[in-house]
């Protein structure tokens, strides 16, 4: 049976702007995996730990956050805050004996859409290799 992971991406307005402007078809042509769902935010600093955990509760196999470079966030420290929260979840996942690499933080330049697509591909490859998330109670 083939396994297609459910991957939830949380991206700030700026880092995802150019990619999203391509439209669904354009993104697919560029290589954006169809199983990655984009959740756009004004700033990743707005993301709460509970929002990311909720994604796992709702069935995500992998979650990642794309924010601005740490020193270039439009809101000064937004992407730094997001990175800290992602780290907090990595620790919580490890506590629960779930692979911490199921969640990741990426810092990307604004409008760099090949790298934006690449982040999605990296996560798709990684999560596909890990198999279904243990929270689903399925056997990988």
């Amino acid at each position, binding site marked *: 049976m083939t396994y297609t992971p459910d991957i939830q991406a949380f991206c700030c307005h700026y880092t995802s702007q150019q990619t999203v402007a391509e439209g669904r078809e354009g993104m697919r042509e560029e290589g954006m995996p169809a199983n990655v769902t984009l959740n756009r935010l004004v700033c990743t600093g707005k993301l*709460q730990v509970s929002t990311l955990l909720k994604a796992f509760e709702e069935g995500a196999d992998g979650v990642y956050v794309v924010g601005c470079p740490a020193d270039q966030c439009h809101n000064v420290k937004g992407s730094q805050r997001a990175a800290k929260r992602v780290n907090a979840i990595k620790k919580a996942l490890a506590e*629960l004996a779930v692979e911490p690499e199921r969640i990741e933080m990426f810092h990307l330049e604004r409008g760099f859409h090949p790298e934006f697509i690449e982040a999605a591909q990296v996560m798709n490859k990684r999560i596909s290799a890990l198999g279904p998330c243990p*929270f689903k109670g399925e056997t990988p």
Partner: protein
Amino acid sequence: MIIAERKPINEILGMVRDAEKILVLGCRGCVTVCSAGGDREVEILASLIRLGMQKQGKKVETVEGSLVRQCDKEYIDEIDQWTGQYDAIVSMACGVGVNFIANLRPTVKVYPGVNTSFLGGSADQGVWTEQCAGCGNCVLHLTGGLCPVARCAKSLMNGPCGGSVNGRCEIHQDVECIWQSIHDRLGRIGNADAMHTIAPIRDWSTAGHGGPRKVLRDDLTV
């Protein structure tokens, strides 16, 4: 304020392993301020409990709530709004809150969601440090406002030990030698002579060594 930290999730999961409905109960007092047990942390812990149980193949329902304080009888009474919706409470208040629920709701199962750490303050965003030991016999008027009981690793009362080096404590370079700081501060506020006052052998009975402590204010009891 009272500083606390969330317990390891597996320890909490072990406590509630037989529960099917859990009330995760925050406190809007000290533990909210130190980001250990307020509404936001309740939401996170409830989510982690659900995920942890899910991973073990168990189904659990969580109810999330918080009280103004868990250290006053009248606020504990508000727990009754969730009657029938839980078979165990995980309290994210300090140990006082857990005790108060246990005292006042004799048949309710209540478990601690946090480790109560110390009495302290916020030194920086996300950093809390111990400032007071609650010893019941305050000497801050003699030490320039800096507490040797809580902030000296050995709770020395008559100056530093021999391990004080360049103002740092011998237990760790990150820890200031509070007696060096007391000395420096007394000098700055024109009270350097206070260093020559010999503190008598201390009576620790007020510090809990005489059993659980109690404060009774007759003017407030009606």
